[in-house]
């Protein structure tokens, strides 16, 4: 340790602390609690997808129209796929295993790269799986309600979905570019 020279260093080091202490037994208990909390956090978004899936299951059993049933079935499959991908990509991670003792630079780079890879291309895992459901739903409406006036409403809804997808895609691309800039900054600092 260096000698304290700077008033700010003295101010910092002289600040009062609570003196939080934990016995080895408390640590073990706490470690178990943290693991449970992290497991729940990792599952939370997947559980959200499965709840939406349950809603589509209700629609599926509520209707007798085959095409609508197919559309809801496709949405359910998409939600399950997204839930699996969310779990795999670990969007809400605690400290990644094995990275605890890596240098800050390595730690940040890994974390930023993971986030960048997750948002860089949202089509295959997040947006594309929803497309068959929307297409089938549109077909179901057009076939079940053969009135051009209704089709205008369906077309407007589809246009809204397309614009929403493009918006999500663009936002994620922008986020990926920001993350890449931060990664480049870290690479330059090494």
């Amino acid at each position, binding site marked *: *340790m*260096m*000698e*304290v020279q*700077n*008033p*700010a*260093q*003295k*101010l*910092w*080091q002289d*600040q009062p*602390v*609570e*003196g*939080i*202490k*934990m016995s*080895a037994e408390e*640590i*073990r208990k*706490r*470690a178990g609690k*943290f693991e449970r909390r992290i497991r729940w956090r990792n599952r939370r978004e997947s559980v959200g997808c499965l709840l939406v899936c349950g809603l589509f299951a209700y629609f599926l059993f509520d209707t007798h129209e085959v095409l609508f049933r197919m559309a809801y079935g496709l949405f359910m499959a998409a939600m399950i796929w997204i839930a699996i991908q969310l779990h795999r990509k670990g969007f*809400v*991670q*605690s*400290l990644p295993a094995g*990275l*605890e*003792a*890596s*240098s*800050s*630079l*390595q*730690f*940040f780079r890994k*974390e930023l790269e993971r986030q960048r890879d997750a948002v860089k291309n949202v089509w295959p895992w997040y947006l594309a799986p929803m497309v068959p459901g929307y297409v089938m739903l549109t077909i179901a409406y057009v076939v079940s309600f053969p009135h051009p006036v209704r089709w205008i409403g369906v077309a407007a809804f589809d246009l809204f979905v397309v614009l929403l997808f493009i918006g999500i895609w663009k936002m994620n691309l922008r986020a990926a570019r920001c993350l890449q800039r931060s990664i480049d900054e*870290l690479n330059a*600092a*090494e």
Partner: protein
Amino acid sequence: MTSTQDELYRETAQTFGAALERLARAYEADADLRRDLVQEIHVALWRSFDGFDGRCSLRTWIYRVAHNVGASHVLRQRRSNAQTLVGLEELENLPDANQGEHAADRSHALGRLLGLIQRLKPLDRHVILSYLEGLDAASIGEITGLSAGNVATKIHRIKNMLARQFQQGGSES
């Protein structure tokens, strides 16, 4: 779970307990969340000692683990908190809001220092905290993985910024 792991943890808690609390203060302003963060750091350290192989010093290991837990906490919080974090370069150019003012109150000065630290990006926060803890440039480089040149530049900026913010008023020391 070995006795060596427990021994290393006991030694760490005894020697670095206060430093770990100060570190947590720089990563979390809310007192309750901070207590949780301190405990999370303790748990991460205890767990990590299972794999401690002595390739770096115990102090380097402890600071790496603690800062990475803190940074992980900041990255998690950023999902719900849109506060923009800045680099040392931006902070160095900030106008000194209290220039010329004699702030006699140490807690006010400490609050101001914490406010500055909490605005920094995690890596810069790591460097300034290590500096405030009195670590030398070589140790900071070893812990952060930054090149010696980069550490020197950052420390130079930190010293300038701290001098402007905490010496011109003259009374905090």
